[in-house]
C-alpha cells in the first residue's frame, strides 16, 4: 500500500497544519482561523454542469469582490478564500467531500450542490458538523421539509415553485384542459403532484397524467395519445428536463401538436435547452423561472459583468450562487463573526433585495428563501435580438405566491 501511505503523509501533514492554525472555535479572533472560506461543491462534468458548473465559481468570486468593494476597510472578513470541488453527481463523493471541506479545509459555508440526492447528503453533514450550507438549485422540497435542519438553507428554486407557477398562471390564462406527462422518478413525481394541484386550484382539469420512462428517447406514444384524448387537451404539460425534454419537444414539433391545438407548457426549462432546440421549436411555450438575465437593468448589468469574465450568459443558478455568497458575507458582516450559529441567526428571517432575489426573505421556520419568480414565454426566433435572449418575462409572481405558502410541518429545525 505504498500509494496510500504516500498520500496519507500528505493528509497527515494537512491535519497537523490545521491543528497549528487553531481549529474552529480556537483562537481569539471572531473570524475562525482569520479567514472566511467559501466552498463551491457542485457538478462540473455531469448533467448539471450546464446550469451550474465551473462558471458558478466565478459568480461566487464576483460576490466576494462586490462585498469587499462595498465595505472597503470595514470588512469583517479580512481574508476570503473561494474553493471548489466537483462531486461528479455522486452523492457519496459529495458526502465525503463536504466532511473534508468542513473539517480539513476550514470551509465556513458550502454553496451550490444542485443534485438533489447530493444536496440532501450534504445537508446531513452540515447538521452534524454544525456548519452552514446554502443549497442553490436542488429541486427537492425535502430540503425544507423532512430533511431540513438549522444549518441548511435552500436558495433559488424548488419543484413547488416551478410547477405551481406554470400550472396556476397558464390555467388562469384560459387553458383549462391539461394532459400531463412526467418522468417516473422523484423529481417528476413531485412536479406532477404540485402541477395537478395548481391546475385544479386555478379552475382547470387534468384529463390525464402519464408517467414516462426515464431516461427516454421516444415520446411518440404520448404525443399520439395527446391529440386523441377526449376531451382534447389544450395544453400538454411536460415535467421532463434536460436531454429528455429536448427529445420530447423535437417530437412534439414533428407530430405538429401545436397546429392541432395542443399547446406546450414546461416544468423546468433552461436556456441551454432553448438553445439546443432553437427558439422556434418552443415559441410561445411558458414556464416559471427564478431569475432571467435580461429581466431588467440590474440583472442585465450583472449578466454583462459575468459574460465579460466567463464568455457566457449566466443561468439562474449561477446568479443564485452569487446572491447566496453575497448574503452569507453580509450576514458575517452584520454579526461580525463567521461562527455558524451567529450566521444562522443573522440569516433567519432576514429581508433583503439584490440583483438576484427581489423581495427576498429567508423564511425563519424552514430556511427556504422566498423571492419573486417569473412567468416566462419563449420568443419566436424573429424577436431574438442577441444570443441567449430567448424569452420575455410575462409576469412577476410575487414572493408570497411563488413558494409553498406554509412551511412543511415535517420540518423541525
Amino acid at each position, binding site marked *: 500500500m505504498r500509494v496510500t501511505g504516500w498520500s496519507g503523509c500528505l493528509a497527515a501533514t494537512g491535519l497537523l497544519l490545521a491543528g497549528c492554525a487553531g481549529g474552529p472555535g480556537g483562537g481569539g479572533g471572531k473570524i475562525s482561523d482569520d479567514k472566511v472560506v467559501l466552498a463551491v461543491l457542485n457538478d462540473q462534468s455531469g448533467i448539471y454542469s450546464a446550469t451550474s458548473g465551473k462558471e458558478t465559481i466565478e459568480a461566487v468570486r464576483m460576490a466576494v469582490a462586490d462585498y469587499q468593494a462595498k465595505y472597503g476597510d470595514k470588512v469583517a472578513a479580512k481574508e476570503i478564500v473561494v474553493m471548489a470541488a466537483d462531486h461528479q453527481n455522486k452523492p457519496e463523493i459529495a458526502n465525503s467531500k463536504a466532511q473534508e471541506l468542513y473539517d480539513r479545509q476550514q470551509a465556513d459555508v458550502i454553496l451550490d450542490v444542485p443534485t438533489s440526492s447530493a444536496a440532501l447528503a450534504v445537508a446531513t453533514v452540515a447538521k452534524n458538523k454544525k456548519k452552514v450550507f446554502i443549497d442553490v438549485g436542488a429541486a427537492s422540497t425535502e430540503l425544507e421539509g423532512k430533511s431540513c435542519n438549522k444549518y441548511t438553507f435552500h436558495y433559488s428554486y424548488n419543484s413547488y415553485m416551478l410547477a405551481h407557477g406554470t400550472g396556476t398562471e397558464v390555467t388562469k390564462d384560459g387553458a383549462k384542459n391539461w394532459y400531463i406527462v412526467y418522468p417516473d422518478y422523484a423529481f417528476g413525481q413531485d412536479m406532477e403532484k404540485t402541477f395537478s394541484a395548481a391546475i385544479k386550484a386555478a379552475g382547470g382539469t387534468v384529463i390525464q397524467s402519464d408517467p414516462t420512462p426515464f431516461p427516454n*428517447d421516444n415520446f411518440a406514444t404520448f404525443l399520439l395519445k395527446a391529440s386523441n384524448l377526449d376531451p382534447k387537451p389544450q395544453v400538454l404539460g411536460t415535467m421532463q428536463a434536460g436531454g429528455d425534454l429536448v427529445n420530447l419537444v423535437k417530437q412534439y414539433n414533428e407530430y405538429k401538436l401545436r397546429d392541432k391545438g395542443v399547446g406546450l407548457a414546461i416544468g423546468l426549462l433552461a436556456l441551454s435547452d432553448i438553445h439546443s432546440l432553437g427558439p422556434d421549436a418552443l415559441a410561445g411555450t411558458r414556464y416559471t423561472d427564478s431569475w432571467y438575465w435580461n429581466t431588467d437593468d440590474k440583472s442585465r448589468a450583472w449578466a454583462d459583468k459575468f459574460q465579460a469574465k466567463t464568455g457566457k450568459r449566466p443561468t439562474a443558478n449561477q446568479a443564485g450562487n452569487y446572491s447566496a455568497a453575497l448574503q452569507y458575507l453580509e450576514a458575517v458582516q452584520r454579526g461580525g463573526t463567521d461562527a455558524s450559529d451567529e450566521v444562522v441567526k443573522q440569516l433567519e428571517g432576514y429581508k433583503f433585495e439584490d440583483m438576484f432575489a427581489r423581495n427576498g426573505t429567508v423564511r425563519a421556520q424552514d430556511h427556504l428563501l422566498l423571492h419573486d419568480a417569473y412567468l416566462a414565454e419563449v420568443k419566436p426566433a424573429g424577436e431574438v435580438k442577441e444570443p441567449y435572449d430567448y424569452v420575455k418575462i410575462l409576469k412577476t409572481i410575487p414572493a408570497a405566491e411563488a413558494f409553498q405558502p406554509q412551511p412543511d410541518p415535517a420540518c423541525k429545525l
Partner: protein
Amino acid sequence: MLQQAFNGLVGGAFYALLALGLAVIFGMLGVVNLAHGAFYMLGAFGAFVALDSFGLSFWVALVLVPPLLGLAGVVLERLFIRRLTPLDPLYGFLFTFGLALILQDLVKREYGVSSQPYPRPAELSGTVDLGLFTYPAYQVFVLAVSVLVCVVVWVVLTRTRVGMIVRAATERPELTRALGIDVGRWVTPVFGFGVALAAFAGVLAAPMRAVNPLMGADLIITVFAVVVIGGLGSVFGSVAAGFAVGLVSALGNLYVPALSQTMVFILMAAVLLWRPAGLFGQQEAFR
C-alpha cells in the same frame, strides 16, 4: 392503435440497426462492443459538426459520416482490438468500456453536456398520408431507410460469397474455421461496417432526438437486452428482436406505463427462462 404500432416500429428501427452492428461484430471478432452506443452518439455529433462547421446538409452527413466513422473503426481494430481478439472476450468488453468512457468525455469536453441543435431536413418536415392515418414524414423515412438497410445487409449476407463467410463465421465460428475458410481477412472490414451502422443510426437520430454526449450510454444496455432476446449470434434474430422490442415498448407505454421502463428486461428474463439462447439462437451452440 395502428399509429402506436407504427411508432413502435420507428423506435425499433434504432434498436435493430444497433443490434445488427453489435451482432456482426461479435460474430466475427468475439468482441461485445460496449462502445457501440458511443459510436451512435458520434454519428449524431458527426451530423451536427457537418452542419455547424461545414454547412453540410443532413443528406450529405447521412452519406459521409458513417463511412468516416467506419474508417475510424478500422483504424481502431488494426491498432488495438486486434490484440485482444485472441484473448478471453471479456478483455474486449472491458477495452470497449474504457473506450466508451473516453469518447463520451472527449465529446463532453468539446461541446458540454447540453444538447446540440439539429433541425429536421426541410424535405421531410411535412406529414405523409399512409392511407389509414397520416404520419410525420421524417419518421416514415427513418423506418423505410432502416428496413432498407437491414434488407440490403440480409441480401449481402445470404447472396454473396463474402456475406456467406461472414454469416457462417458469425453463426458457426468454429465450424467455419475448421473448414479452412480464411475468416481473418474479413475481420477488420466487418468491424468498420458495424461501427458505420451505429453511426448511421446516430445520424438518423440527430433530427428527432437530443444530440448530447450521453445519448448512447443508456441506449446500449437496452440494445444488449435486444441482442439477448433475439438470439445470441443470430443476425436475423437481432434485427427481428429490435423491431419487436420497439413495438412492445410502445404498446407498454400506452397500456402499462408503470412497467414501461422495465418491460424490455422482463421480456429478456422471460426469454432466458424459456429459451436461454434467445428466440432465434441455436440452443446447443451457446452453452
